[in-house]
């Protein structure tokens, strides 16, 4: 019995369009022009209890709107969503007790008072007996390591500490389903790390279903075995992260330590040259021709070292959004190897099994 079931969910808005300046303002008075925005178009998916799923997408792609339709905040234009067996927009009590919402950079705690006071209010709202509430607060505070911070006024806490208290407040009623909208937004690296670890542990211990949206690939890579890629309101991919790379970026990076410096042209016979710096080169090779290319490189160039890895997920996703080469049915044409776009910077890999040799970069 799936925790979340979405069929053909759609959301459209009508927005008034206005030109700038005084002339525009006056014209706007007389005649209104409207534009229809299709924020979410026919999205369908299911989530089983205990899953952790990531919504991935560019700004304005529709992932937050989809998430908020699951919380009952926004009424769908058409289609159906069932969360914990209920229609979210009906806002039935049973539904509201099973879910929770956490939003990055937005808080529900009272600003001037200690977090503990806000927690007591929440306990009352969710009808948790006082003794039970105290026990839960203690346990979660232990897990989140915020024991001392609970008694200080919220405005005196750092952003990371505040987010931890927010999490506490959000989880006090032990919801089955956690919905998180950009939860690590604005946090420093350590705080982000701590939150990811906590969510993973919480999911493991309590079996809660987790849906999160994020811009930070590190969040998705660290937490989500399954991703839903939303682009311009449509769901174009639903599956594992490694599968995403396979489908949309059927190429590999081949890093070479050359024996002697070479001209760029000399390397271009083997594949797209993404980077060339002295004796180090990075080639992009189509997967279908990987083995033969590697064999040729080894034979002809005799490099001192050769490593094969997946392209960084950020790069894959970034390219997807930039070039928009995805069609609604979800089958994308291979990304054209047209010059080096972005840096390979923090090369997070999918951790996909296989030929990934020494890949530098962060482990999630």
């Amino acid at each position, binding site marked *: 019995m799936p925790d979340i079931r979405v069929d053909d969910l759609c959301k459209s808005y009508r927005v008034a369009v206005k030109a700038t*300046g*005084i002339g525009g*303002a*006056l014209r706007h008075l007389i005649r209104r022009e409207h534009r229809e925005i299709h924020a979410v178009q026919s999205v369908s998916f299911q989530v089983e209890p205990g899953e952790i799923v990531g919504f991935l997408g560019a700004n304005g792609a529709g992932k937050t709107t989809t998430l908020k339709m699951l919380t009952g905040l926004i009424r769908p234009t058409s289609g159906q969503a069932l969360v914990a067996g209920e229609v979210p927009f009906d806002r039935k009590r049973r539904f509201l007790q099973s879910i929770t919402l956490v939003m990055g950079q937005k808080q529900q705690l009272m600003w001037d008072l200690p977090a503990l006071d806000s927690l007591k209010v929440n306990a009352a709202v969710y009808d948790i007996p006082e003794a039970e509430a105290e026990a839960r607060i203690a346990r979660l505070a232990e897990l989140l390591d915020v024991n001392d911070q609970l008694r200080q006024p919220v405005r005196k806490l750092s952003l990371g500490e505040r987010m931890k208290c927010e999490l506490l407040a959000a989880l006090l009623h032990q919801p089955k389903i956690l919905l998180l909208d950009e939860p690590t937004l604005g946090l420093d690296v350590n705080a982000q790390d701590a939150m990811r670890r906590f969510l993973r542990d919480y999911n493991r211990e309590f079996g809660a279903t987790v849906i999160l949206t994020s811009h930070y690939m590190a969040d998705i890579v660290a937490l989500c075995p399954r991703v839903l890629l939303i682009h311009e309101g449509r769901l174009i991919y639903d599956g594992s992260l490694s599968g995403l790379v396979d489908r949309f970026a059927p190429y590999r990076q081949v890093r070479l330590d050359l024996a002697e410096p070479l001209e760029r042209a000399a390397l271009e016979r083997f594949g797209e040259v993404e980077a060339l710096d002295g004796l180090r080169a990075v080639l992009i090779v189509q997967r279908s021709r990987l083995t033969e290319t590697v064999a040729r490189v080894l034979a002809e160039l005799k490099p001192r070292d050769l490593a094969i890895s997946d392209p960084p997920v950020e790069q894959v996703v970034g390219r997807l959004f930039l070039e928009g080469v995805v069609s609604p049915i979800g089958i994308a044409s291979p990304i054209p190897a047209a010059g080096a776009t972005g840096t390979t910077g923090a090369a997070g890999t999918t951790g996909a099994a296989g030929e990934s040799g020494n890949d530098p970069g962060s482990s999630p």
Partner: protein
Amino acid sequence: MMLARFLRKARALFVLYLGYMLEYRAEIYLWVLASVLPLILLGVWAHAAESGAYPLSRVEFIRYFIAVFVVRQFSFIWVIWEFEDLVVSGNLSQQLLQPIDPVWRFVASHITERVVRLPLVLAVVALCFGLYPDAFWLPTAADFATAFVLLVLAFATRFALQYMMSMLSFWSERAASIEELWFVIHLFLSGLIAPLDVYPEPVRRITELTPFPYLIYYPVNLLLGRGAPFGQAALVLGVWGGLGWLLQRILWRRGLRRYSAMGN
């Protein structure tokens, strides 16, 4: 040369804030409608005056409150809330970096807001004349001109005084509460609730020492053609406004020191 540069900046500010105010015209129109107290009092006094017990006739009362409504729209100042906002949020820092004193922005916003108010104010006045056609009148050109000058003086004085009070935002987060106290006094001493003619003599004499009657009562009298001691008004307003301005300069400097000391 200096004047040309100043005028250019003034024009830029004016256009900027006019666009801004047009964007918020719905809110502004609602403020106009929210200030209908004079019109309510119009009804009450007009009805009461039918008994003939007061120094003014029914028609005179009606005209008085229509004029009060108009004058009030143009003499109301809200700079203390805007300033308090800037200080508390820390956004004052951005404005301090600009080559013009922040005060000019406030002046620009106040003037452009009134421009946007004007159509609705005229519509309301037309409605009043529709209800009471026998009270219709138009001030003579001379009366209108002197009233206008006095109103500009009143605006400047009230602005200077309130801006001076805004400086207290550097020291307290609730400086705007002072304005509430000021407003209470203003409400009852400026002729807003009733023409000063119906006030007992001793009370009336006290009010004339304060700047309040010169903000509402005397401009209204000018518009009604009843005349007002212009020289006296200009003097009182000038003194109060000047004091406000001087005090503001002092508090501004002290306040800025404190503001930057707090790491803004």
